[in-house]
């Protein structure tokens, strides 16, 4: 039985990893078949990018518009459409990455780049492995050949040997005198084994290099609509929380920005950047009582004895008093009653922030469509504080909310989907939830913590 196993072992040891370079026409046939299938579906890259962004932005808007989360005016997303420069995918190998030569001289791997890439140096004129194996019968010669790359090689009968090889090397980092990549002792009498060993060593070197070469970087931009509202903690119960909630509601706003991302470890990345975010809320059914302000529910008649009386419009809501630049002159009927129906005035208040995020992202699924989760903190700097009161007819006043903090911070969580349109450009679709961890107001009565939920769509360029 042992002897039977010996014959198995002999063949297994010699043939399990046996490799042999196929003739070039095999790839030609494969490429031909692949091209047939490809022509049916291939669209220009820029059309695919534009269509993807439009599609994702449309989906985002549609979801928020019809989810019934806002009763107010919708503000369409301003998706960042940073159109990448048009790039054409050639059906043949780009010359920058692959150098092919049909000459009979072994040329240098001419691809010298600042960062590692796969350089394919194809130099074969005859198919198969039957070419001049006798030239490589001396291991020392092979070793010299490896170290001598890319020099010409000739056989004993002065025939120039066509060598087909593929090297994967971090070219810029190679010191040809000291780098271990050039030191492997490949002792073989087979030209094909030499070539294959070269390839395997180069691949291992490349993988090792990738591990030690440091983080990879990407930049991008994204944006989209978000629904924003707030959570209120009532400290001094001037009004019960229900009174606030009864007349206040969230709004649809938007956010977006540019991000810089670094991937220090596989699947983990850290992201920062600069963003703009607009949040706010709506105070409806604003009443004017004899105190000229408040959140009361009744409308006093016969309030005015003097038609010329100007009423300062000063609206109290959960976030703080909204003061307006102009006074209110309500329309007065002949009987000196106010013409307005109850609750005719609505005030929208918006806060605009420049945000600096610090986010960590983990890639859960690394496939054709990537799936990642992302969480982190945001530093928010107030850059806009606007409020608009209107009766939806002629009256319109602008003002601002008092006592809003100029610096705030919040936390976020998102689940992102990424799809690579071409090999270094990704588009993303990222539902998120963001909650302010510090109150944005400094009123003694209430602490207001806004939150937002929305969908960011965007595009990322990978270096």
């Amino acid at each position, binding site marked *: 039985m042992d002897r039977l196993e010996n014959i198995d072992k002999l063949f297994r040891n010699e043939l399990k990893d046996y490799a042999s370079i196929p003739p070039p026409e095999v790839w030609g046939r494969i490429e031909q078949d692949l091209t047939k299938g490809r022509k049916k579906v291939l669209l220009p890259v820029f059309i695919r990018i534009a269509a993807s962004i439009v599609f994702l932005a449309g989906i985002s808007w549609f979801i928020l518009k019809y989810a019934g989360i806002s009763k107010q005016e919708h503000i369409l997303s301003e998706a960042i459409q940073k159109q990448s420069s048009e790039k054409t995918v050639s059906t043949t*190998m780009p010359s920058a990455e692959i150098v092919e030569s049909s000459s009979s001289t072994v040329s240098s791997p001419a691809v010298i780049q600042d960062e590692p890439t796969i350089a394919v140096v194809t130099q074969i004129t005859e198919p198969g492995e039957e070419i001049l194996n006798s030239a490589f019968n001396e291991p020392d010669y092979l070793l010299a050949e490896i170290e001598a790359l890319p020099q010409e090689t000739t056989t004993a009968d002065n025939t120039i040997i066509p060598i087909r090889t593929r090297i994967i090397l971090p070219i810029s980092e190679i010191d040809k005198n000291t780098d271990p990549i050039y030191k492997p002792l490949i002792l073989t009498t087979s030209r094909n084994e030499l070539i294959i060993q070269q390839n395997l060593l180069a691949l291992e070197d490349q993988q090792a290099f990738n591990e030690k070469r440091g983080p990879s970087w990407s930049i991008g931009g994204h944006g989209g609509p978000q629904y924003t509202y707030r959570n209120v903690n009532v400290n001094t119960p001037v009004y019960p929380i229900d009174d606030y909630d009864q007349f206040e509601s969230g709004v649809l706003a938007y956010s977006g920005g540019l991000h810089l991302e670094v991937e220090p470890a596989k699947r983990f990345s850290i992201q920062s950047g600069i963003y703009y975010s607009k949040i706010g809320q709506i105070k409806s059914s604003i009443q004017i009582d004899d105190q000229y302000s408040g959140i009361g529910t009744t409308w006093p008649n016969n309030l005015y004895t003097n038609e010329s009386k100007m009423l300062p419009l000063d609206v109290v809501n959960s976030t703080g008093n909204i003061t307006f630049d102009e006074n209110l002159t309500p329309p007065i009927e002949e009987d000196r009653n106010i013409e307005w129906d109850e609750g005719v005035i609505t005030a929208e208040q918006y806060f605009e922030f420049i945000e600096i995020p610090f986010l960590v992202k983990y890639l859960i699924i690394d496939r054709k469509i990537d799936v990642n989760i992302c969480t982190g903190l945001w530093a928010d700097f107030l850059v806009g504080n606007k409020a608009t009161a209107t009766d939806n007819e002629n009256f319109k006043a602008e003002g601002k909310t008092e006592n809003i903090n100029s610096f705030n911070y919040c936390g976020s969580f998102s689940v992102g989907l990424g799809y690579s349109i071409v090999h270094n450009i990704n588009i993303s679709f990222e539902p998120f939830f963001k909650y302010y961890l510090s109150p944005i107001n400094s009123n003694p009565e209430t602490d207001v913590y806004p939150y937002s939920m929305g969908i960011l769509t965007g595009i990322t360029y990978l270096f």
Partner: protein
Amino acid sequence: MFNSLDHIIKGCCRKEPVAQRLLYEMFSARMFGVCKRYSGSREDAQDILHEGFLKIYEKIEQFESRGSFEGWIRRIMVNTALEKFRSQNKMVNASETIEDYDRGAGDDLADNITAKELLAIIGELSPQYRMVFNLYAIEGYSHKEISEMLDISEGTSKSNLSRARSILQEKVKEFYKNVERVG
């Protein structure tokens, strides 16, 4: 930039020609070696390689990144070879008695026979013996698995293996005799 196998695989998922070419460059030699072991002629091996790579490009999205990618494409090549031989050869459901064909050649097997020479020897086996021997002795499949793959009984698989071993031993011995004669 395709600077790792992962990137090349992802590029192939996106049907990018450059990635497809690089994948071929990376694995074609080793897979052609597999194809040659399973085929009786160079032309058949090229056909299997051709069909196998088309399947790889078509199914690459199904590859689970947790496993060995080379193992995955090797299985596709082996399956492609099996399909080809199923269509070309009706497997003989032999019910021969399993004989011990060991005639001692294994003891004498020197280690200086080259892979190419062994490949030529294995190529002289009949297709069904070559299939069974490859699957059992080189790939490591069990007789039960081989019987399912080739749609034969386990007994036939064992019998074919035994016959294949015997033939190979004879041919190896013959090879050395010729070497000695020339020497």
